[in-house]
C-alpha cells in the first residue's frame, strides 16, 4: 500500500459529533453523504444503489441520486464522462440530496473534477481514489494524476489512495466490471454494515439480469475482498444507527413511483413519446403495464400521444400521457380541447431545464405558469405537484380520480430531481378503491344532456360510447349543454362559467396547507414540488438558532390551496424558494418595476396581494439545503 488511511482523529472530523464508540475506530454519525464516481460503464450506479438499498433495508433514511453524463458514450477519464451516484443516508429519514459529500470514492481523478465543478466537495471531504494511475504506463496520465492529487490536497480534501483496481484484479481479468463491487465491500466496512444483505441484493440483481451462479459468486468474492481490505486498512469507520422499520418499505425513484401510481389508479392507457427525463417512467411501464391490464402507446409525437390518450379517455378508458417541457409545449392545443370538451386526462410533466431544449437531463421548476396559463383562451384545469417520491405514487391515484370526477385534465408536475432520486417509503397497501370504475355501458338516461352542468359546481356526468341513448358529438367549438355548437353570447359566458366553477368547487374541498414550524414569525418560505425536503431542512437548521422562520409547501397549484392570504398575514415577510429563473433586485436595471419574479411567487402575488419575494436559481441541479439556508439568512439580515 502506497498510502496510509487517515488517523482516527481525522476521520472523526468527517463524521460530526459521534455518539458512541463500539470499537476503537468506529464512530457513530447521524448521517453521511457518499459519492462513487467513475467512467461511464464502470458500474458506480449499480454499486451505489445496492448500498443504498442495504442501508434502507437496515432502517436508515436514504436518498440516492444518479450522476449521469450528458453524452451516451463519453470518453474515458474525462470530466464530461463522469458517471456515478450520491448516497445520502442517516438515522432520520432523508428527503433530499443534501449538501457537500463526506466521502467520495473516485475511480480516476478526472471524473472527480466534474464533482468539484458541481461544488459537491468541501475541505475535509474524505477522498478514496484508485492509486492505479500513479503507475500508469502513460507518462501523461501519471503526471495528470500526480498534479490532481496535489491539487486535491491543496483544496483540503482528505485524500486516500487505495488499490481498487489492484485488488479487483486478484479476482477477475476485467476489473472494469468488478471494481464497483469491491467498492461496495469497502463501503460496507466503512459504514459497519453486515455483508449478508448486500450479498442477497447482489444475488437478486444478477438473477433478474439472468446471470449464472458463477457471476454471482465472483461478485460476492469481490464484495468480501473490498470488505476485508477495508476492515484491515481503514483507520476510521462509522456507525449510522438505523431504526428498523415497523412496516414494509419500498424503495424506488419518482418515475417508477409515477408509473406504479398509474397502475394503482387503474389507468389503462399510457400514451407517450420518448423524452428525457420522463421516458424512464414509460420504460418501466413498457415492461409491466400489460400485467395490470394496461397498454403503453409510443406515439409518433407528443401531439399524437395526447390525442391518442384523449381518444381512449373519450371511449371510457382512463388515460395518462407522460412528458417533459418540450412535449408539454406540443400538447398545448389539445390540452385546451380537453378543457373545452371536458375530457378527463392525467398529464405528467417531469420538468427539466428550459426553455427550449435547455438542459434535458437536469432539474428545473419552470413549467408552473405554462401549465396554468399556457393555452390560449380561458383554460381552467387542475395542476398539482408532488413534493416527494411517495407523493409521486399517491398523486397519480388522486389525479385520476380528480380528472374523472371533475371531467378535466389534471397536470401533475414532477421534475428531474424526483424522477431520478430514490428513497424508501412505506409500502402502499394496494386497494381496489384506487382503480378506475369499469366502463359504464348501461343506457344513458334519456333527456339528460351530455353536459348537464350542475349550476353551482359545474359538474356533470359524461356518456361513454356504447351507452345507448347517450350519443353526443363532442366538440371544441363553443357549445351548450347538449354539446351543440352555440354562438349565442349568453351560452358562451355560461359554459365558461361552468368550466371555471369546477375549480372553485374543488377548491372548497381542500384544506389550507400546514405550516412547517411555527404558525407565525418573521419569514415564511414557500415552496412547491421537489424542493420540500431541502427547504424544510434549511428552515429547521435556521430555527435551531432561534430564528422565527417557517415554511409552507403547496401541492395544489390550481385551484390554489385555500387560506394562503390568512397564513401569509401571520408572517412579517413571505418568500418563495424555487428552481427557476427570477431577477434579483440587486441586479443592474432591476427594480420593483422591471423585476421578473419566480413562478410561484408570481402566482402568490396575484392571488394574495402580499409582497411575496423570491429566491430562485437555475443551476441545473437540485438546490442543496445550505444554499437555501444562506439565501434565507440573507433575507432575514436584510430585514433588520
Amino acid at each position, binding site marked *: 500500500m502506497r498510502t496510509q488511511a487517515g488517523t482516527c482523529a481525522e476521520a472523526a472530523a468527517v463524521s460530526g459529533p459521534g455518539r458512541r464508540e463500539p470499537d476503537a475506530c468506529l464512530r457513530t454519525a447521524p448521517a453521511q453523504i457518499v459519492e462513487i464516481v467513475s467512467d461511464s460503464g464502470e458500474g458506480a450506479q449499480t454499486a451505489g444503489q445496492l448500498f443504498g*438499498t442495504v442501508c*434502507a433495508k437496515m432502517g436508515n433514511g436514504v436518498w440516492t441520486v444518479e450522476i449521469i453524463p450528458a453524452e451516451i458514450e463519453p470518453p474515458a477519464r474525462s470530466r464530461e464522462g463522469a458517471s456515478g451516484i450520491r448516497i445520502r443516508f442517516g438515522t432520520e429519514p432523508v428527503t433530499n440530496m443534501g449538501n457537500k459529500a463526506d466521502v467520495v470514492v473516485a475511480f480516476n481523478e478526472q471524473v472527480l473534477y466534474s464533482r468539484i465543478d458541481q461544488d459537491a466537495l468541501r475541505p475535509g471531504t474524505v477522498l478514496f481514489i484508485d492509486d492505479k494511475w500513479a503507475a500508469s504506463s502513460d507518462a501523461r496520465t501519471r503526471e495528470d494524476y500526480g498534479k490532481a492529487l496535489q491539487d486535491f490536497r491543496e483544496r483540503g480534501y482528505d485524500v486516500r489512495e487505495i488499490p481498487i483496481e489492484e485488488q479487483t484484479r486478484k479476482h477477475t481479468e476485467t476489473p472494469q466490471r468488478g471494481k464497483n463491487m469491491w467498492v461496495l465491500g469497502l463501503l460496507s466496512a466503512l459504514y459497519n454494515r453486515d455483508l449478508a444483505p448486500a450479498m442477497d441484493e447482489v444475488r437478486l440483481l444478477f438473477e433478474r439480469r439472468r446471470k449464472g451462479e458463477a457471476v454471482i459468486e465472483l461478485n460476492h468474492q469481490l464484495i468480501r475482498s473490498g470488505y476485508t481490505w477495508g476492515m484491515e486498512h481503514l483507520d476510521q469507520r462509522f456507525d449510522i444507527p438505523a431504526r428498523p422499520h415497523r412496516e414494509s*418499505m*419500498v*424503495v*424506488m425513484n419518482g418515475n417508477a413511483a409515477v408509473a*406504479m401510481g398509474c*397502475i*394503482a389508479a*387503474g389507468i*389503462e*392507457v399510457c*400514451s407517450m413519446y420518448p423524452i428525457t427525463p420522463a421516458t424512464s417512467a414509460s420504460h418501466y411501464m413498457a415492461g*409491466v*403495464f*400489460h*400485467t*395490470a*391490464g*394496461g*397498454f403503453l*402507446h409510443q*406515439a*409518433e*409525437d407528443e*401531439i*399524437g400521444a*395526447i*390525442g*391518442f*390518450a*384523449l*381518444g*381512449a379517455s*373519450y*371511449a371510457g*378508458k382512463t*388515460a395518462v400521457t407522460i412528458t417533459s417541457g418540450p412535449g408539454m409545449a406540443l400538447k398545448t*392545443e389539445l390540452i385546451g*380541447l380537453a378543457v373545452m370538451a371536458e375530457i378527463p386526462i392525467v398529464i405528467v410533466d417531469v420538468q427539466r431545464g428550459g426553455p427550449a431544449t435547455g438542459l434535458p437531463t437536469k432539474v428545473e421548476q419552470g413549467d408552473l405558469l405554462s401549465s396554468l396559463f399556457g393555452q390560449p383562451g380561458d383554460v381552467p384545469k387542475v395542476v398539482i405537484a408532488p413534493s416527494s417520491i411517495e407523493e409521486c405514487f399517491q398523486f397519480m391515484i388522486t389525479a385520476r380520480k380528480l380528472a374523472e370526477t371533475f371531467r378535466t385534465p389534471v397536470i401533475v408536475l414532477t421534475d428531474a430531481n424526483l424522477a431520478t432520486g430514490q428513497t424508501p417509503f412505506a*409500502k*402502499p397497501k*394496494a*386497494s*381496489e378503491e384506487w*382503480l378506475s370504475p*369499469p366502463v359504464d355501458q348501461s343506457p344513458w338516461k334519456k333527456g339528460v344532456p351530455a353536459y348537464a352542468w350542475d349550476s353551482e359546481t359545474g359538474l356533470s356526468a359524461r356518456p361513454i*360510447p*356504447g*351507452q*345507448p*341513448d*347517450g*350519443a*353526443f*358529438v*363532442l*366538440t*371544441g367549438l363553443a357549445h351548450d349543454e347538449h354539446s351543440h*355548437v352555440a354562438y349565442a353570447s349568453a351560452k358562451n359566458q355560461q359554459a365558461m362559467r361552468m368550466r371555471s366553477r369546477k375549480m372553485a368547487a374543488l377548491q372548497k374541498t381542500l384544506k389550507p396547507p400546514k405550516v412547517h414550524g411555527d404558525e407565525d414569525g418573521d419569514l415564511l418560505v414557500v415552496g412547491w414540488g421537489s424542493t420540500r425536503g431541502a427547504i424544510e431542512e434549511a428552515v429547521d437548521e435556521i430555527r435551531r438558532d432561534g430564528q422565527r422562520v417557517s415554511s409552507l409547501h403547496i401541492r395544489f397549484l390550481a385551484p390554489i390551496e385555500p387560506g394562503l392570504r390568512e397564513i401569509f398575514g401571520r408572517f412579517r415577510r413571505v418568500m418563495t424558494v424555487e428552481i427557476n429563473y427570477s431577477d434579483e433586485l440587486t441586479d443592474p436595471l432591476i427594480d420593483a418595476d422591471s423585476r421578473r419574479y419566480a413562478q410561484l411567487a408570481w402566482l402568490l402575488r396575484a392571488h394574495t396581494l402580499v409582497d411575496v419575494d423570491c429566491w430562485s436559481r437555475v443551476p441545473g441541479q437540485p438546490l442543496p439545503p445550505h444554499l437555501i439556508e444562506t439565501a434565507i439568512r440573507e433575507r432575514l439580515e436584510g430585514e433588520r
Partner: protein
Amino acid sequence: MYGLKTDWPAEIPPRYFTLQEYEGSLPRWCPGCGDHGVLTAVQRLCRDEQLEPEKTVFVSGIGCASRFPHYMKAYGFHGLHGRALPVACGIRARRPDLHVFVATGDGDCCSIGAAHWVHAVRYNMNMVLMLLDNNVYGLTKNQTSPTSLKGRKTNTHPRGAWLEPIDPIQTTLGIQNASFVAQTVDWNPPHVLATLKAAHRHPGMSFVRILQRCPHYPNQDFVELQNNPAKLLLLTHADGIEVDDAVKRMFKNRQEHDPSDLDGARRLADREDAVPVGLFYRNDSADRYDRNTVEGLATSRRDKIAALEAELSRYEI
C-alpha cells in the same frame, strides 16, 4: 329477423335501425356540396350494416368535411384541426367493439395532419378513413390545399398555386402497412356506398379518398370530370369493390385491376390520363396495431391489484 311483430316475446327486443335513426342535426353544408351525398351514403351504410348507433363513433378534425359527426346520430368527436387520427386510434385502441369512422379534409389530413396520416396508415387499426378531398380549404374560405391543382387561384395564391398537388393515393400506397386504399367520387352515390361498405368490412385501416365537389369554391377539374366521365376509370375485380351492373354502366372506361398488386396500384395512381375509381390496393395480412393495443383488456380488477402488489414487492426492501 327484422320486421317482427311488436308482441314478440323475447326479453331483448330486436332493434332495427332505420335511416332516420342515423340522422343528426340538419347539415349546414352549402347546397350542392359533395359532403351531403357522402353523408347520405354513410347513413345508408349504417342502416344496411345495422350498426348500433351507440357503438358507432365518428371522429373528425376541423373543416367543412369535419362537421360530419354533427350530422350523424351516433357518438362523435369533432376535435382539432389535423388531429382526428390520433384520437380515432385512441378510441379504437381499447374498444374493439366500436365502429370507428374518420371524416377529414384534404387540409386536415394531408397538410396539418400529415404526420398522423403517415403513422395511422402504418398502425393500420380497424377503422374507415374518409378523406373528403375538395382540393381546397373550404371552411376558411378558399386557400390552397396540398391537393389544389397547380395554377388554381386561391386567396393565398391569387396568381395560382405554385406546385403540383400531392397525390393522397400514391402517398398512402408508399406507407408501410397500407392495407386498403380506394378512391371514389361524391357524385356517384352507389359507388360511394359500395366503396364505404367494402372499407367498413375490411379488417384494418381503410383509406378512402372521395373526390368531393365544393360548389362554393369550385374546382374546374371536378366539374369537367363530372361532365366528361370518360376520364374516370372504374377499377373492377372479383376482390375489388363490388358494384352492380347499373353502376358499372355509369363508367365508360373500366379496367380489371387486382387489388393485391401493389405495383400495379402505384402505376394506376401515377396515370395522368385517367382518374381511377375503385380499389387500388388491399392487403388483409398487413400488421394491425389494434391487435396489440387490446392486450390485457380482460384483466380483472383482482388481477390488476395482484399485478400492483407483485410490482410493489419487487421494490420492497
